[in-house]
């Protein structure tokens, strides 16, 4: 069918102080309807205090096939982690 409503990805902030988190998707004609539908579909039990809706086509995702080369540069840089460094026992608050 040609008239399918666009797909929207839904993100919920569960309470103030936490980030929005992806919960699923739904179809809606526009952003306003997506918000209303997201309210009914994903927050029937006080799951959130804020909603984001993003049309799915606007999300660019990395390719899982490229995840090795993509994330590889971080793997051998263990000096970025605090555990890489030896701190003498006598030294505290570090």
């Amino acid at each position, binding site marked *: 069918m040609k008239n399918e409503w666009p*797909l929207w990805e839904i993100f919920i902030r569960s309470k103030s102080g936490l980030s929005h988190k992806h919960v699923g998707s739904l179809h809606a004609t526009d952003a306003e309807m997506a918000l209303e539908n997201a309210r*009914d579909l994903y927050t029937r039990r006080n799951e959130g205090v804020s909603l984001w809706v993003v049309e799915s086509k606007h999300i660019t995702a990395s390719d*899982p096939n490229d995840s090795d080369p993509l994330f590889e540069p971080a793997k051998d840089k263990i000096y970025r982690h605090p555990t890489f460094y030896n701190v003498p026992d006598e030294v505290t608050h570090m």
Partner: protein
Amino acid sequence: MTSLNLEALFQSKIDEETKIEPKDWMPDAYRKTLIRQISQHAHSEIVGMLPEGNWITRAPSLRRKLILLAKVQDEAGHGLYLYSAAETLGANRDDLVQQLLSGKAKYSSIFNYPTLNWADIGAIGWLVDGAAIMNQVMLTRTSYGPYARAMVRICKEESFHQRQGYEIMIAMAKGSPEQKAMAQDAINRWWWPSLMMFGPKDAESSHSDQALKWKIKRKTNDELRQQFVDVTVPQAEYLGLTVPDPDLRWNEEKGSYDFGEIDWEEFWSVVKGNGPCNKQRLQARNKAYEDGAWVREAASAHAAKKEQRKLEPQLATKAA
């Protein structure tokens, strides 16, 4: 990588309990099996609204009416979570809906049985949702990420469904002799169809082995059915009611119940479309879809108009 290597890599991820996510490579058959299973599950939630929706206007109190409304709304929500999980596999929502409306797609046969009176609403919540929960709790650990996440949401909500059903059963079982008889009659009619919800026996289940290997399922039909009988029979005893199975008895040795044989002829007959309500359910879905056509069109037209209005000031500036 050759497809053989890809398949081996895929299986090793499954074996080490790494979830498969939408853009990961997966065998075509895994994708197809999941689309079929998830969409059938979604259809079941949607059709499942019909037998209960039938009683919203006739609920015996405002409290019961509010609860039933909320439950039926949840079923719609569950259908939508699942359709959206199926879409992450590349399925198209309208195609899936069309497959339901044309009768090509299957949904759970349990919804092809009629709800004759209020006790049936209790029996459905307790037995039918109870049986569904057995399956759905297992599916929260299924290997496909979006399906597993949808199931976690669904399971949280289903627990309310089962409890409200059991509460109705308690009220009727402790009520007048007539009410108690209605509750017993509802169990008599819903017990066997509930056991059928777990599907054919393991020996005759065509998809089972592969689904277990891929960890789409983690328990067989017969294991889940046994688990359901074991937890449900004591709940019936608490109500002072019985399940309609003369062969049911506790087996001390295996620590679970032995129970009678399902009428498989009835099972297959309902699956093939000859249950008491198959035609009625499909007609109701088709009618709802056709009656809603003008709403869908109007909403699309309204959205297009709003979009146009947003663009018009810009066009005006450009022209000037």
